[in-house]
């Protein structure tokens, strides 16, 4: 453990690993494009999780071996994937029936900001010089049973992303269940952030300093020390 404890803040693979531990056997899971895709790497092979891709796949497997790519079998990030036994294909319409209809157990999304009431901002910045694009983010935000956010605790310039109120355009209102950052695991309750786990080496006071909203520390809080994945 000592190697892990010496490091301040988790790596992204470690955050992905931590999220993977939160996903129950048999769950139907949608992973957002980018870092959330890493979560699939840490779901063990003896726990069956069914991954959903918004472009019409259930039971999505890992990337194909080089040379085995099929342009008609891609994920939401348009990267080649494979299909596991038991997987299925369906239309976009049916895919969003699954999403909007509350059939996806867990969706892991990145975010610019999350507010203490669960508001999510992950589709648009305040930069209006380029065209907007939303993809399936708003549908996932309102539809999945549990929205997990995977993000750095602060921006690259050190500004907080866990907000009292989002300053970026919203993707959905009161939708986030839990936020997994490099520094903590934080549940969103009715109207506050409750810290459930703090990365080893970080104090609650340090965590609060890096957060815009007021944090509550859970009675049962734990130290989070993932393996060096």
């Amino acid at each position, binding site marked *: *453990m000592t190697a*892990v404890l010496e490091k301040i803040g988790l790596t992204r693979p470690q955050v992905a*690993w931590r999220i993977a*531990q*939160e996903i*129950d*056997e*048999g769950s*139907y899971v949608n992973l957002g494009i980018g870092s959330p895709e890493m979560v699939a790497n*840490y779901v*063990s092979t*003896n*726990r*069956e999780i*069914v991954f*959903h891709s918004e472009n019409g796949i*259930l*039971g999505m497997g890992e990337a194909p071996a080089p040379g085995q790519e099929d342009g008609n079998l891609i994920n939401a990030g348009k990267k080649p994937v494979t*299909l596991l*036994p*038991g*997987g*299925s*294909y*369906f239309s976009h319409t049916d895919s*969003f*029936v*699954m*999403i*909007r*209809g*509350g*059939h*996806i157990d867990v969706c892991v999304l990145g975010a610019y900001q999350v507010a203490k009431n669960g508001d999510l901002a992950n589709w648009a910045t305040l930069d209006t010089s380029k065209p907007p694009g939303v993809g399936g983010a708003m549908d996932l935000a*309102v*539809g999945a049973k549990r929205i997990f956010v995977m993000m750095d605790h602060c921006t690259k310039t050190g500004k907080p992303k866990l907000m009292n109120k989002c300053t970026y355009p919203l993707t959905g209102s009161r939708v986030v269940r839990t936020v997994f950052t490099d520094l903590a695991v934080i549940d969103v309750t009715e109207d506050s952030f409750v810290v*459930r*786990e703090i990365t080893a080496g970080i104090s609650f006071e340090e965590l609060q300093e890096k957060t815009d909203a007021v944090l509550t520390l859970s009675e*049962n809080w*734990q130290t989070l*020390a993932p*393996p060096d*994945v």
Partner: protein
Amino acid sequence: MSPPILFINRIDWLVVVDFAAIGYDLYLIDHLGLASYSTPMIDKSVNNISAAVADIQSGSVVLSSGFGDAGAPVDLLEALIETDAENLTIVSNNAGEGNYGLAALIAAGKVSRVICSYPISAGSVVFQDCYQAGEITLEVVPQGTLSERMRAAGAGIGGFFTPTSAGTELGKSKECRKISGVEHVFEYPLKGDIALIRATRADRWGNIVYDKSARNFGPVMAMAATLTIVQVDEIVDLGKLNPELIITPGIFVDRVFVHNG
């Protein structure tokens, strides 16, 4: 080698982690005391039809597939007779025929309300008798609206405007709106607590394949209920169903029971 770390990661789950010993896997011991490593796979098959329907509660809204006999979950409906569930609302295209399946459930006094499009088939004598006796209430819904209301429930749609029934007795108490010059009525989603469905084949993930016109209401009912139970002829190995042909993916299915299996 790192020591095991013990922590509570959900209020009802006790998680024991020994990274070095298990290669970052978790042994999950749930609050019922069942170790999940004894069931390391998704398996939705249920061997016992009584177990398949045992937890259906009184007052449930039960979606029942089929168009006439084709696709009707006869055995599941009859298994319901032996449970304590009563005061059921049945949503189905028809109201049962003869004295089997839905008609038998009605005859057993389990059904207090029927929502359907066509309860007056020649053979629906049991329903009609109960209706005349005032023992069952009836909501007649146009067939396409019935299907679309269930789809809305399954698809997370809050409601929709349809031209079907506008200007008729069935539409008269509904919110109306003229859209593109055509009168529409507003319809709400119709969600089931339970869906009982008859299909042909399944796998242990709950992927479902139907046969010919027996497909009918199965796909939409599977998506529109909180708990979906499917009666099939056969369960095949995972991967044996053509992924292009899986009509109801397992995400919509909770239990699969093999009829005579």
